[in-house]
């Protein structure tokens, strides 16, 4: 069935409301932020309208470049860890009975209700020397004495993966449930063990979903600024942490805005690149 293209202005009616919302809550604030990023900062105060590039110039240093690189690396690592963990988990989940699936999904949703602060402090306790998991390892004789597992990169990664995993599973779940279960059975009748079939049938068949999930988790992780501060050392701080620091503690709005704009541009660039590579791979 082919739909008629809209004829009159009134046919576009249903679009007005979402377009208006998008304008008020996204385009206007984002435009304001871009404008502010070119403003002149007043020392110890606020900022005055201007058109200077100093905020962007200040950003182009090895220090901020390093932080940007680390932020991207961390977000990519979180995305990959989440998808690698969530894919087999969600596949096994989809094979359970309806009842058990619902129980698992409700459990995952309840993890989503935890705030980032709670997740951060919970993990900092779990990874601490005095009350943490390493005490268990000492009990079962795997460690000589308890150690502090935080602050460290591993701790930041653990916390962020923990936070993003429920999202990952909930995004993958519908696609995996909809996948024809006979595809895996067919692979088995053709001589593939279940584990091989997982890798050479399920994963390629879900290629687009996996790509979209990676991008979603990547962007989600890029915005994280509390967990790196709670669970990491200053060298594990992300650009989001620095933006918060500039905007709130240093009252340097123009610089914070410039960093935010830059982060958005880099993110968009990376997503576009990923989609481009994905499309090429599909054609080949």
């Amino acid at each position, binding site marked *: 069935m082919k739909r008629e293209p809209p004829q009159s202005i009134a046919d576009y009616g249903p679009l007005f409301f979402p377009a208006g919302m998008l304008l008020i809550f996204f385009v206007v604030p984002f435009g304001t932020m871009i404008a502010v990023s070119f403003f002149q900062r007043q020392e110890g105060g606020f900022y005055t309208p201007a058109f200077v590039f100093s905020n962007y110039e200040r950003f182009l240093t090895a220090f901020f470049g390093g932080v940007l690189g680390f932020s991207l690396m961390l977000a990519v690592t979180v995305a990959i860890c989440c998808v690698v963990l969530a894919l087999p988990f969600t596949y096994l989940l989809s094979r359970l009975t309806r009842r058990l699936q619902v129980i698992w999904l409700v459990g995952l949703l309840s993890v989503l209700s935890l705030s980032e602060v709670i997740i951060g402090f919970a993990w900092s306790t779990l990874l601490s020397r005095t009350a943490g998991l390493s005490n268990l390892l000492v009990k079962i004789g795997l460690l000589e004495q308890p150690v502090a597992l935080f602050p460290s990169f591993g701790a930041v990664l653990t916390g962020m993966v923990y936070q993003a995993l429920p999202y990952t599973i909930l995004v993958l779940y519908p696609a995996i449930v909809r996948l*024809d279960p*006979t*595809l895996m*059975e*067919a*692979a*088995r*009748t*053709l*001589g*593939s*063990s*279940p584990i*091989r079939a997982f890798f*050479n*049938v399920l994963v*390629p*068949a879900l*290629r687009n979903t996996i790509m979209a999930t990676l991008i979603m988790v990547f962007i989600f992780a890029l915005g994280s600024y509390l967990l790196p501060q709670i669970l990491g050392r200053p060298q594990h701080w992300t650009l989001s942490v620095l933006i918060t620091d500039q905007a709130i503690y240093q009252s340097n709005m123009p610089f914070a805005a410039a960093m935010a704009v830059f982060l958005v541009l880099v993110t968009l660039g990376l997503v576009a690149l990923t989609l481009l590579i994905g499309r090429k791979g599909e054609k080949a």
Partner: protein
Amino acid sequence: MSGLVLNNVTKQFGAFTAVDDVHLSVPHGTFVCLLGPSGCGKTTLLRMIAGLEDPTNGTILLDGADITDVPTHKRNLGMVFQSLALFPHLSVGENIAYPLRIRGAAREEQKKRVDELLTLIHLPGYGDRPVSKLSGGQRQRVAIARALALSPRIFLLDEPLSALDAKLREAMQVELRQLQQKLGITTIVVTHDQREAMTMADTVVVMNGGHIRQAASPIEIYRKPADTFVADFIGSTNLIETKADNSGAATMFGHRVTGLALPAGAQKATISVRPEDVHLTAPGNGAIDGTVTFVRDLGGTIETFVEAGGQQIIAVSTPRERPEVTAGQAVGIVLSPDVCVVLKQ
């Protein structure tokens, strides 16, 4: 013996018994159709042969070896699913080559075999096309080629033609049978379409309620149905209650049918008479009295509905032997004893 043997195979899902104590032996190279209404256990039986379901009880032997506990991917079988289950991310050629790739066959060998199979299924040169660009019938053939790529020991098909339109389905039935005869491969097809079963099978296995009701050649199933279910499920039939009279001879509608013997000691029995075996004559002369209620003239065949003793009897005839009758007319029904099949109770 060579071939496939099922011994006491039972499958329970919770309290529900899908397949109940089934015995079946399929000699090497035969074409077997599992036929029955939906929910009769035929697909479950096929999936157990494939290893996709574990039998609750019983053993499955292939060429004398017990394969009951052998995982699916080590059974060396080819299976075509109802959904076809072609891999959407692979081209036609890659789909067919998949089992060869899994076995680590060399690239040239894969290509040679794919070309061979594409020729076999009359789709030469289709190797590079995406699966999504094929028609229903073409996909069907690709699924068959993929299942046959490794020359499997048994070829299983689960309602393989159900997604095709009627005309294509009839053509594919003939094609599938010819392919099976050419390759001489042991083949088991699940279907609910009796025409499909009659067209293709050496042996038709009629199932209902998890049991095998009858396993025999198509013509025997049609001519000598074992019980009322088989008689009714295969083609159309007239089921007539017959009683034994004082002398032990069979009577129906108060008429004695000479030459028809009921099982020893039975007081009554149901017999099956195919509509084409019902002969209509002028009333009287020892024939069963009936009244024509409706004549359905389909051109190729004529169905005459006759009421006799409160029961409807259908007679089918060809235009050449058209009974010149109209609704309301009194006729005589003649049933010769050799067309009456006494059914098991």
